[in-house]
């Protein structure tokens, strides 16, 4: 179980390899990489700045990761979330889960990213041709988080 909140980019392949090797009984490793897009609903985006709440972020990420391990039989997991200014194509977030069984790996990975979208103290400001705007929370993200229950 690892969490990292950092400005620097990360090496997705190296992280997946590390989690894959966490136990000799890992049968499946699921991962998700979130990237900065160059447009959101026809509005073009030149960059995005992620602000977060240092301290609370790490605390809440560690908590949700522990919860994923309670809910699913995971051998290991990793969450990396970046902050600061990022341009289209750059990696924002990485979630990796390893389990003997693929279903557990998939579900835990999706659970973690759904949670990050709505409950991790990050806020995104987008640079658009009309100036900077704060990204609003999406109802579809709330729905996705809801489905995992309390």
């Amino acid at each position, binding site marked *: 179980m690892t969490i990292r909140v950092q400005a620097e980019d990360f090496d997705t392949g190296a992280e997946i390899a590390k989690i894959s090797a966490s136990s000799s009984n890992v049968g499946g490793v699921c991962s998700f990489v979130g990237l900065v897009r160059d447009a959101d609903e026809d509005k073009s985006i030149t960059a995005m700045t992620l602000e977060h709440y240092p301290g609370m972020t790490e605390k809440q990420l560690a908590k949700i990761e522990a919860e994923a391990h309670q809910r699913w039989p995971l051998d290991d997991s990793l969450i990396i979330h970046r902050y600061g200014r990022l341009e289209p194509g750059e990696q924002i977030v990485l979630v990796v889960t390893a389990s003997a069984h693929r279903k557990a790996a998939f579900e835990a990975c999706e659970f973690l990213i759904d949670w990050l*979208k709505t409950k991790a103290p990050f806020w995104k400001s987008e640079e658009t041709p009309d100036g900077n705007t704060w990204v609003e*929370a999406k109802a579809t993200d709330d729905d996705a988080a809801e489905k995992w229950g309390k």
Partner: protein
Amino acid sequence: MKILYFAHFRERANIAEEDIVLPKGVEDVNGLLDWLAARGEGYADAFADRDHIRVAVNQEHVEFDAAVKDGDEVAFFPPMTGG
């Protein structure tokens, strides 16, 4: 008591962090919001739409009826958009 402001709260109140002495009679987040909103235009503006305020006390997400006391770290921010 330490108060932190994030995202557009920080921009509208024009402050990221401040130390205050918990005013007499303020016992929960609701009371704190009323007191902050009365401090001036930036604050009133920032806290006008309470549906869009999220709050953490000592780095735990709480509802507006949560108790606050001197020494707490209270943070105000809009709905999260991580991931």
